[in-house]
């Protein structure tokens, strides 16, 4: 049951009604049952994994809280992290490692004795595992007390709006919310509904429409020229944003309707003027998680290397980010490229800042436009690795881009037209929100006619230009 399935459109309103008529102190229980029902609906056996991660995290965080010594706390923390990482490694990385070793040995005429095991990756495992690790570390660092009610902890790790693809939330933000008795506030409900509506627009009108073009080109790389591959690569960046950004908005909106505030996951990333700014606006929950639990401790340990310590910490963090996305060489390369971009920015930061402020570049429109375009270009170029099937496909794309660039691209009239309309509207809204946040309000306009006309228009666009029947979001694979 994905957010864009009809089952969800029936399930969620029903749940919202049941949730609000449940006495406040038992609402968390309603949400817990609903969350497990939601997850079991995808594949029942996967729910056992979440339950296992929950149980392990509960036991060890309680032990951490009760431990008297610092080393005892650290030991329990490490044991729990290793335990909850086991299923992630097994399901996500075992096949790749097995295949890698198999191929390596076979190239030396040695047969690998283990048979190939094809495992279906449990949806959302990377997300709830990271949430559980974050919680364990927070308890160990005493920035949060361990939760005494296993039900509340289970809800935190299985909360249905977040379990499939995040945002990767923090216990500090979520646990108190599950325990407070919330009053039904229609202003918040309306806000949540608006977020969901825009999320559906991003997913169904923009992402899935552009996806038709991208799939057509990336599905048959050898048959397309360099221009088509460039167009498809740029479009893939937009597709990924609209898909994941749309998903995040639906997730945040869904939680909001239930009175739960979830952190923002995207903040108009394509208006970033540098890669470091881009990563403060793209998949914010993952990056802030990596910053808090990987980058900051690492840069602290490497502080004696000064700026090179920071570079090393960035490279390791983004290497891990690549591995988190997938156990293939393409994702690792993609992660390392991001690390490289940020490292170059870190190394040149002082000089660049001086130069920019000397000529007041940050206030010049041409500089902002160029910087945004360049950031977009860098990101799109790196995404080739994450979208390509394997490393050789990615390299083939680059070689084709540089060898047959000035040819007519593959054209798919209606898809391109509808994509352009969808993206145009999305771009316009993001542009207004970025540069004129309080002007030309549509969803938030005080005039009810304008507000309602906007809602109707967006619904009309979804029904008229939306692509239905594709229930998957790109980030489900992670």
């Amino acid at each position: 049951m994905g957010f864009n399935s009809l089952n969800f459109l029936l399930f969620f309103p029903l749940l919202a009604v049941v949730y609000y008529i449940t006495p406040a102190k038992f609402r968390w229980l309603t949400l817990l049952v609903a969350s497990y029902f939601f997850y079991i609906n995808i594949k029942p056996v996967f729910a056992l994994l979440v339950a296992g991660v929950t149980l392990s995290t509960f036991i060890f965080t309680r032990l951490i809280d009760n431990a008297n010594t610092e080393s005892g706390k650290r030991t329990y923390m490490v044991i729990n992290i290793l335990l909850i990482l086991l299923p992630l490694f097994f399901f996500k990385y075992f096949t790749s490692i097995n295949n890698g070793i198999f191929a390596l040995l076979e190239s030396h005429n040695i047969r690998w004795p283990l048979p190939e095991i094809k495992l279906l990756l449990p949806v959302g495992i990377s997300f709830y595992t990271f949430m559980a690790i974050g919680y364990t570390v927070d308890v160990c660092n005493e920035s949060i007390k361990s939760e005494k009610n296993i039900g509340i902890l289970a809800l935190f790790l299985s909360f249905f709006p977040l379990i499939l693809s995040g945002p990767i939330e923090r216990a500090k933000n979520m646990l108190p919310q599950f325990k407070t008795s919330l009053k039904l506030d229609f202003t918040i409900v309306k806000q949540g509904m608006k977020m969901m509506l825009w999320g559906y627009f991003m997913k169904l009108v923009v992402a899935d429409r552009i996806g038709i073009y991208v799939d057509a080109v990336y599905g048959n790389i050898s048959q397309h020229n360099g221009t088509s591959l460039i167009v498809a690569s740029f479009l893939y960046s937009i597709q990924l944003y609209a898909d994941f950004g749309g998903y995040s908005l639906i997730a945040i909106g869904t939680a909001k309707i239930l009175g739960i505030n979830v952190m923002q996951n995207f903040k108009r990333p394509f208006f970033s003027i540098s890669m470091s700014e881009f990563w403060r606006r793209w998949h914010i929950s993952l990056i802030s998680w990596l910053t808090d639990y990987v980058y900051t401790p690492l840069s602290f340990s490497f502080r004696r290397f000064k700026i090179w310590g920071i570079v090393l910490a960035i490279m390791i963090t983004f290497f891990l980010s690549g591995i988190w996305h997938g156990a293939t060489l393409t994702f690792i390369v993609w992660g390392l490229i991001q690390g490289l971009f940020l490292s170059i920015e870190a190394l040149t930061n002082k000089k660049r800042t001086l130069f920019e402020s000397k000529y007041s570049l940050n206030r010049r429109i041409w500089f902002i436009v160029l910087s945004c375009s360049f950031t977009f270009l860098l990101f799109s170029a790196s995404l080739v690795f994450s979208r390509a099937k394997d490393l050789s496909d990615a390299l083939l794309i680059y070689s084709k881009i540089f060898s047959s660039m000035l040819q007519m691209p593959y054209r798919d009239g209606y898809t391109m037209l509808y994509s352009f309309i969808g993206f145009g509207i999305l771009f316009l809204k993001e542009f207004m929100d970025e540069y004129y946040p309080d002007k030309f309000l549509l969803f938030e306009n005080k005039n009810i006619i304008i507000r309602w006309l906007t809602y109707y228009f967006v619904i009309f666009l979804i029904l008229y230009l939306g692509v239905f029947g594709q229930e998957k979001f790109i980030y489900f694979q992670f």
Partner: protein
Amino acid sequence: MIKFAIKSLIFVLPFLILITIEVIIDPFNYFSEEKDKKLQEKKEDISLKTNPYLYKLIKYDRDPCSIIILGDSRMDLLLTSKFETYSKEKVSNLSIGGGTVQDAIEIFRYVSEKHDIKKIYWGMSIESYSGTRLRNRATPSIEIKNSLLLYLLNRYTFSATMLICRTMIFNEQIDLSKPPVSKEVFWQDQLDLCSRYLGNYSYPENYFHDLKKISADCLAKNIKLVFVLPPTQLDLQKKIHEFKLDEEDKRLRVDLESFGDVYDFNYPNTITTDKSNYNDPFHFKESISNIIIQEISTNQIKYSKFTSITK
């Protein structure tokens, strides 16, 4: 609470009205067969052209038959009544204008899962058997057909309902298919369209594998797979040479011959050299359509080059 409920009700009111109208008009006969002849004519004029797959699939599910036609507008020109005349075959035509191989594959999958199929006439050409012709209108139509909510809240039902209402209220005729240009201009337009398809051509590895699977499936289920290469006017055939796709055109035939029986009308012959047999370089006239039907349904070969998979 009450204020919110009232506002919500007012907000959804236009949708409720729209859905009510859609249920009353039922432009694609989703709920039941249309008994009012006049309204049925309007539906055939409007709904069939708004979303032909949706219209045809709903009709087909209500009255399925074991022989189907798949393909594009050229196959759509084959009248099912003529099959009955020539060979007593009861045939359902599920091809549509601009239909792609991807569409036909999806329709095949849907239909063969639900119904007992004995024979398929599958129209194929180099313009459609291309790795860059990937448009898929069949899957969304199948999705809509399978879901009441989607049927009531999709653009095709909405457009068709509105157009039918317009014809009823203003008593006007709406022709959605008539090209608003002279025959000469349209002829050239179609040649240009062909150039676009051929200019974008790439060998369809994806279709080759899908069709290979379908062929094996058909063999296992005892379904006769018959490919038809409809005759296109010589001007159009010359385009294949112009775009240096002669080898690919041959390869298409080799591929098809490995999947099933093939009736090839698309080569220089008395049909394709005579412009008067055509409305435009793609679309032949009814007399030619009858010849094709007669040949493929009775296997009395006169114009086509026939290759049997069992040879």
